[in-house]
C-alpha cells in the first residue's frame, strides 16, 4: 500500500475512500466529528500547471458540493515544477489560482489543515500546505527552502559556516523542528495520528498566528514586532 494511503488509514481509522490519481490524492475520511475532505500529493510531486489545476478543480468541487466541510491537505512536494514548459504556460498563475481556491474555501467556512508527511519545499509548500489555518508535520517529514550545499553555492557562504549557523538559529537549516520554532508549524505529530487530527479539528480557528508563535518560541524575533510597528505607525 502506498505510504499516503497508509497515512490515511491512520488518520481515519473509521474509514476513508481516498484514492490515488497520478500525483494527486483525493477522497473523504470519516471521523467522529464528521466527514473530512482529503486532498494531497504524493511521491515528492513537483507542482506544475497540470497538477495545480487538478488540485484547484478538486477544491472548487468540495466548496460547491460540501459547504463547510473541513479540508485536510496531505503534503509531499519537492516544490514547484522546474520546467520551461510550466513557466511558459504561467505556473505562477496556476499556483496562485490554487491558493485562491483554498482561500475561497477558508472564507466560506472550510477549516484548512495540512499535514506534511513527505517533503515540503519552497513554491510547492507555499501553494499547498502553508496556505492552511493549521499546519502539522510528521516527525520524519522534510521541510526546506533549499539544501545546504546549494544554499552555500548561491550565497557564497562556506558550508561549514552554514552548518554552524544551523546549530544556533532555526533560520537557515531544513527540518520540522526549525519550522516549529519559526512558528510555521503548529506541531509535530507523533503517536496516534487520528487523535492528533481530532485535536486539531477541535482547536479554535484563529487568524494567521505564525509570526506571534515564532516570537513566542524565540525562533523568529522580528516578524511579529515589525508587522505590529507598521500597524501602529502614525500617519
Amino acid at each position: 500500500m502506498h505510504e499516503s494511503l497508509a497515512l490515511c488509514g491512520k488518520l481515519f481509522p473509521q474509514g476513508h475512500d481516498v484514492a490515488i490519481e497520478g500525483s494527486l490524492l483525493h477522497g473523504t475520511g470519516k471521523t467522529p466529528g464528521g466527514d473530512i475532505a482529503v486532498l494531497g500529493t504524493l511521491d515528492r510531486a513537483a507542482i506544475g500547471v497540470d497538477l495545480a489545476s487538478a488540485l484547484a478543480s478538486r477544491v472548487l468541487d468540495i466548496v460547491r458540493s460540501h459547504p463547510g466541510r473541513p479540508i485536510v491537505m496531505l503534503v509531499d512536494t519537492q516544490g514547484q515544477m522546474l520546467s520551461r514548459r510550466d513557466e511558459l504556460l504561467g505556473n505562477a498563475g496556476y499556483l496562485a489560482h490554487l491558493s485562491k481556491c483554498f482561500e475561497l474555501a477558508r472564507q466560506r467556512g472550510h477549516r484548512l489543515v495540512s499535514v506534511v508527511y513527505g517533503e515540503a519545499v519552497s513554491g510547492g509548500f507555499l501553494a499547498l500546505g502553508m496556505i492552511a489555518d493549521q499546519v502539522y508535520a510528521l516527525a520524519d517529514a522534510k521541510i526546506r527552502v533549499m539544501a545546504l550545499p546549494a544554499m552555500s553555492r548561491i550565497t557564497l557562504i562556506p558550508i561549514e559556516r552554514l552548518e554552524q549557523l544551523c546549530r544556533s538559529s532555526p533560520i537557515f537549516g531544513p527540518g520540522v523542528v526549525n519550522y516549529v520554532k519559526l512558528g510555521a508549524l503548529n506541531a509535530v505529530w507523533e503517536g496516534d495520528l487520528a487523535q492528533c487530527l481530532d485535536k486539531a479539528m477541535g482547536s479554535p480557528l484563529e487568524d494567521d498566528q505564525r509570526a506571534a508563535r515564532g516570537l513566542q518560541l524565540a525562533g523568529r524575533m522580528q516578524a511579529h514586532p515589525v508587522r505590529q510597528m507598521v500597524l501602529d505607525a502614525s500617519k
Partner: protein
Amino acid sequence: MEAAGVSNATDDGFYEATARQRVAALLDKGSFHEILPPAQRVVSPHLKELDLPVAFDDGIVIGEGRLDGRKVFVAAQEPAFMGGSVGEVHGAKLTGLLDRAARDRPDGVVLLLDTGGVRLHEANAGLIAISEIQRAVFRARAAAVPVIAVSAGSNGCFGGIGIVARCCDYVVMTEEGRLSVSGPEVIESQKGVEEFDARDRALVWRTMGGKHRYLIGEADGLVQDSAARIRAAVLPWLGTPVPLDLDSLTQEHARLALRLEQFGDAQDALEIWSRQGVKAPQDLPGLDHEAFMNIAVPLRNSSHA
C-alpha cells in the same frame, strides 16, 4: 527628432530606478509618508550575523501617499539590495502594510515588485514571510481593498512573490518586466541547459517577459516603461476590487483549463502566439509597444473574455 524620443521614453522609467525613485515618481508630488523610514534602522539581524551589509530599510520602502488625490498604500522593493529578496524584516514590513490596508481601507495598495523571491541568507524566515504576505494579500482583498502588483524592474518578479503577484487583484507589467515562479538560472542549474538556456535572453523574455504574460492573460495590463504610464494603468483600478468568490474563481479555472487545452503541448511561446492567431509571431518581440498592442489587445479580448 527620433533621437530625442528615444531618451525621453525612458527618462522616468522604472527599469533602472531605485525603490525610492519609483515611489516618488508614482505618487502625487510630496504626498509620500514613509512607514519605518531609514532613520528607524529596522534592519535584518540575520545579515549582520552573516557579516554582510544591511540596509536601513531592509530593501523595501513602504508607506502611504496619494495617487491623483486618492489614498493609496505603496510598497517598493529595492532592486539593488540583495536582488530585492524577501527576508524576515522585509517580509514583515509588507505583511504589516497589507494588514494596515485591510484596517484603514485606502483606495488601493500598489506593490512595486522587483525580486528573485526568498532571500536565501534568511532561507526559512524568507519562505514563511512570503506565505504571510500571501495571506495578508487575501485579507486586504477580503476588506475590498484592491491590491495591484507591478512588475517592471530588472530583477523581474520570481519565486514565491511571483505567486503572490498573481494572488493580487491586478498585475501590470512592462515589456522588460518578468513574472514567473522558477527563474531561468534555477531551471538551468537543476535541469540542464537543454531544458532552459538561461543565457538565451530572447528565450527568457518570450517565456516569462511582459509581452508573453500579457498575451496569455497572466498580466492585466502592459505599459511602456514610464512612471506616468504605470500610474495611468493603476489609476482606474483604485477603488475597484476584483471579487474573489466562487463565480470569479470558477471563471478563472475555466480560463486556465482552456489555456492548458489550447497550448499545453506547445514547445515555445512562438507556437502559442501562432495558435492565438498572430501572423508573424517571430516579429512580436521586436515590435514597439503600440504596434504590439494593436495586435495583442484584439487577441486578448477574444481569448480571455
